[in-house]
């Protein structure tokens, strides 16, 4: 628990402190990974397989190697150590050797004096492919005769959650089928990094990533180097959203650097970036909700199918998430949920903000609206009636122990002011923002229908299912030239969310010192875990807090010892306040008096243990939960099927806002990504090939697409978490797609079941979806991922010793 000092030190927890990295960012001086430069550096470039499934018959690099300016051309055989890597299973080849499983899979890498030379050389690598039949549909992948992506078949994981009486009867049922498309994180900074060979035979990699240590854990064995010879340093990160959880150019750059003995920089362009990282799993979800006539939920049955693409990445955790969140944040006494993730020859899917909970929310919130319509009930009211709360029993058998202000979140959201009715555009020429279609000049207000939609969602915080997550931090208190100064070392990756600023705020509050410096993250200190799962404030904030408490203890011990020697008495508890040591609230002496020697402490923070799911999907899988509600107001041009989102109102359960401005920023940014999935974002695949690998055809929201976002923060502290603060990055993304979809249904009266919604759908040109039956459940040895039963070793668990 935090023991706050008496008067607050400026810039501490709870204040909207400016970003500590803000000044270099606004000056254009902040060094992103793509900005790195080293004397004599070479540029790396990747040759990728153009086929979704192929055998590699031969590779001839002689012409490429002979090209002037080329320093190295490497193939799978040149990987000195382990040939594969992967977050959960090492199933992904560093470079494809005799088999490629998706269009875009790396086959060779080149190092040359400039990017153009590297590209031209890559063209001269002659690869003979034998194209194989590919499986690119997730339901086809379940079939017995489908091409096998991996030898053991196409099921990655199938789990089943049986709760209460799965056969429970209900007075009425609503059912639905829903689809979500493949979304891309589209972080503005594409993949980039620089590897520099070291004199000790090791390598230093400067890279934009989400988790330095899990990267190193995968890189070192491939390079056949011990971990201490592979040093990772965080380079400036231009956004992540899950795209940087997996290794991309890391091993390639290191291989090239070690071979050429020169620094090697690799920076993907936007098109390549679409192939360089995982995407959000496309989903097909069948649901049946049973209820009593009075609106009480009785049963939820769900069948969830996710397309994991060619390699496992973190898919097994995503399907568990989608499944454990499938009931929605409601009291559901009976449930049968089955989640399956399959391999296909599509590009791999993995982590993206929301991590399975997004897809589930689209489905269960559509179901709640269907139920409300059937019962003639107000949709908000129906949700209030069924909302879960602290003490609720979930379908997994987990009891919600922490704060769960679901009703409060719903009420606060519903109470936010509604926007004015649609204004007429006075100019008559259809301004860029007043009407759907924006800058396209397609409307003077014709055919507009306004719709309102409401949705509630939930998300886990931190990793789940028994994963022993932790974060390490070191805090050092010393006398500096301008006064006492604290330094923080922590490997937590700042990706733009503001964690470094929050860590500084925590130190200010805990140590009563204003000057706090945070070191650039690297692998010299222990792991801080991943910047994902909305966990860094909890985990690294917790580690920093523990380290600060240890520093305080050591400081106070020194104070007591010295004052005892001096014979001066101490009255009351010791504290620190604005650079002064205080006793009983009374200033005793400046802090520096006791800092002739610095005080340093390193601590590791663990969250409470969780338990994995058993064969019936029972366990205690999630550390804690966060909830969010959104109300979306949209105007739909019903003739053209175009949309203007007029307003998003939201209330989010944040525990405690450590930096309110940053919290609002996360809510607004997360909402934008949900809006993108609702209206415009989809990686379009045809037979395993990405057709829209550019920002011209993969559209993310512009400033003309985003509405004002009204946010209310619900602060009910989470017991057991540092400052009671919940993570805030994901819940808004989880819920906003569902809210906008609900608003579109309200505006058009159409039973929209798929996101992203197309103009065709809204203009009534899409034929109604035929009823579909879910595919039969596959036979599996158990609820764990199949590779685990086959003895493929775990990834992260090894490192955490779990």
């Amino acid at each position, binding site marked *: 628990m935090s023991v706050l000092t008496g008067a607050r030190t400026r810039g501490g927890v709870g204040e909207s402190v400016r970003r500590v990295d803000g000044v270099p960012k606004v000056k254009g001086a902040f060094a992103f990974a793509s900005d790195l430069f080293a004397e004599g550096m070479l540029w790396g470039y990747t040759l990728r397989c153009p086929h979704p499934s192929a055998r590699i018959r031969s590779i001839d690099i002689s012409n490429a190697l002979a090209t002037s300016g080329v320093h190295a051309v490497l193939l799978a055989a040149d990987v000195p150590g382990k040939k594969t890597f992967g977050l959960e299973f090492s199933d992904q080849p560093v470079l494809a050797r005799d088999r490629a499983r998706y269009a875009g899979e790396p086959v060779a890498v080149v190092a040359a004096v400039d990017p153009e030379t590297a*590209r031209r050389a890559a063209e001269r690598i002659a690869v003979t492919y034998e194209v194989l039949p590919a499986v690119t549909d997730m339901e086809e992948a379940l079939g017995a005769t489908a091409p096998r992506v991996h030898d053991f078949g196409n099921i990655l994981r199938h789990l089943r959650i049986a709760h209460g009486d799965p056969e429970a009867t209900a007075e009425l049922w609503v059912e639905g089928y829903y689809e979500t498309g493949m979304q891309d994180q589209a972080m503005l900074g594409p993949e980039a990094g620089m590897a520099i060979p070291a004199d000790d035979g090791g390598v230093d990699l400067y890279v934009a990533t989400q988790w330095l240590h899990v990267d190193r854990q995968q890189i070192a064995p491939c390079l056949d180097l011990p971990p201490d010879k592979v040093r990772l340093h965080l380079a400036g990160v231009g956004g992540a959203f899950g795209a940087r959880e997996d290794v991309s150019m890391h091993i390639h750059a290191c291989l090239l650097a070690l071979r050429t003995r020169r620094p090697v920089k690799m920076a993907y*362009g936007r*098109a390549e970036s679409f192939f360089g990282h995982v995407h959000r799993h496309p989903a097909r979800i069948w649901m049946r909700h049973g209820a009593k006539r009075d609106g009480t939920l009785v049963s939820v049955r769900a069948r969830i199918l996710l397309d994991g693409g060619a390699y496992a990445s973190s898919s097994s955790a995503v399907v568990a998430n989608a499944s454990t969140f499938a009931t929605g944040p409601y009291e559901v006494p009976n449930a049968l949920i089955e989640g399956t993730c399959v391999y296909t020859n599509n590009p791999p899917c993995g982590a993206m903000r929301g991590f399975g909970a997004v897809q589930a929310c689209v489905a269960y919130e559509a179901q709640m609206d269907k139920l409300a319509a059937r019962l003639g009930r107000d949709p908000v009211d129906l949700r209030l009636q069924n909302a879960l709360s602290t003490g609720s029993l979930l379908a997994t058998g987990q009891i919600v122990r922490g704060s769960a202000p679901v009703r409060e979140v719903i009420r606060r959201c519903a109470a936010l002011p509604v926007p004015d009715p649609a204004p007429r555009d006075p100019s*008559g020429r259809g301004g*860029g*923002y007043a009407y*759907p*279609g*924006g*800058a*396209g*000049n*397609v*409307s*003077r207000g*014709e055919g507009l229908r306004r719709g309102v939609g409401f949705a509630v969602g939930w998300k886990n915080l931190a990793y789940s299912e028994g994963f022993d997550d932790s974060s390490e931090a070191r805090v050092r208190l010393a006398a500096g030239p301008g006064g006492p100064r604290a330094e923080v070392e922590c490997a937590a990756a700042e990706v733009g969310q503001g964690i470094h600023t929050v860590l500084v705020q925590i130190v200010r509050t805990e140590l009563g010192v204003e000057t706090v410096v945070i070191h650039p993250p690297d692998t010299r200190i222990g792991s801080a875990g991943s910047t994902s799962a909305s966990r860094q404030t909890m985990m690294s904030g917790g580690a920093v807090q523990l380290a600060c408490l240890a520093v305080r203890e050591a400081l106070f011990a020194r104070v007591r010892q010295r004052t005892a020697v001096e014979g001066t008495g101490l009255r009351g508890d010791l504290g620190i306040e604005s650079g002064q040591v205080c006793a009983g609230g009374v200033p005793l002496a400046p802090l520096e008096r006791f800092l002739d020697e610095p005080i340093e402490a390193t601590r590791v923070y663990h969250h409470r243990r969780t338990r994995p799911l058993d064969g019936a999907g029972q366990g205690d899988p999630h550390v804690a939960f966060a909830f969010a509600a959104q109300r979306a107001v949209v105007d739909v041009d019903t*003739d*053209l*099927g*175009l949309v*203007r989102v007029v307003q998003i109102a939201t209330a989010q359960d944040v525990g405690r806002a450590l930096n309110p401005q940053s919290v609002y920023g996360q809510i607004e940014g997360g909402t934008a990504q949900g809006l993108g999935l609702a*209206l*415009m974002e989809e990686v*379009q695949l045809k037979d395993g090939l990405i*057709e*829209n690998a*550019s920002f*011209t*055809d993969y*559209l993310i*929201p*512009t*400033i*003309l*697409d985003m509405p004002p976002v009204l946010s209310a923060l619900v602060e009910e502290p989470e017991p057991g978490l540092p400052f009671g603060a919940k993570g805030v990055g994901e819940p808004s993304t989880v819920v906003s797609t569902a809210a906008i979809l609900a608003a579109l249904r309200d505006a058009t009266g159409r039973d929209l079941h798929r996101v992203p919604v*197309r*103009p*065709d759908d809204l*203009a009534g*040109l899409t034929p109604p979806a035929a009823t579909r039956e879910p595919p039969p459940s596959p036979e599996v040895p158990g609820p764990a991922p199949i590779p685990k039963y086959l003895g493929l070793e775990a990834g992260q668990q090894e490192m955490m010793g779990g």
Partner: protein
Amino acid sequence: MDVLLPRTLAEALEVKAAHPDTVPIAGGTDLMVDLNFDRRRPRVLMDISRLPELAVWRREDGHLFLGAGLTYTRIIGDLAAFAPLVDACRTVGSPQIRNRGTVGGNLGTASPAGDALPVLAAYDADVVLISAAGRRTLPWAEFLVGPKRSALRPDELVLGARWRIVRGPGSFSKVGPRNAMVIAVASLCLVIDEDRRGVRVALGSVGPTILRAGAAELEIARALESAGVWDDPAAAVPREAIERFQSAVAAAARPIDDVRGSAAYRRHACGVLARRALSWALQDRRAAAGPTPAR
């Protein structure tokens, strides 16, 4: 690869005559994408973005000559009287793109999605081409030959477009799946020609090249005649006539399914845009004519 920086149009044309495979670059909004994405590697590039002779416009003899080198921003500023042209320039992406993109670029690339092209088609513009050997003026229908194919000869540059100024209201609209920065899924320019009592409709992104909805144009002009609209802007146009116009324009489209949109939607959108553009033009005509005198 070489890059040449001619100082005058004459120099540029000499280069083109001597090396017809030289690729001109003005605003770069198409060509630079091809270069950056490693899709093209021309042997020689020639910067024509600063040639003063290309960045002019002139009214002459009831015609407007629009130089190929005028940026969208300059057109918006200088040619406000040409409402559909200004509409088209405003729908083009961002200020950054408008500051560099040119109508000459639209013509040179000859993509059916080029934003200014439906306007030039509706204006029945001629395309003026120039080479070291002299000038050549082609009627619109002879210039655009197919998707990204024009009648431009290897030794020629586009000098500009020229059309007889049409008196009457009009507009340009462009449909896309988000509110800004879209390549048109469908676009439409409608122009009313008061003097010839005609309606012109040109469609973009719904065929191999820019299309004119000829049959729809004739039919609606007749319907407006029957309704007495030409003489009395306040006269009502029968709803069936508008609906037939909408269907006829939709029928004139020849769209395909592609990653940006379906053929069915494109066709549907053309019809809707046609109806709206017509009603705006008639509204604007009514408003320009002033209040109806008391009867």
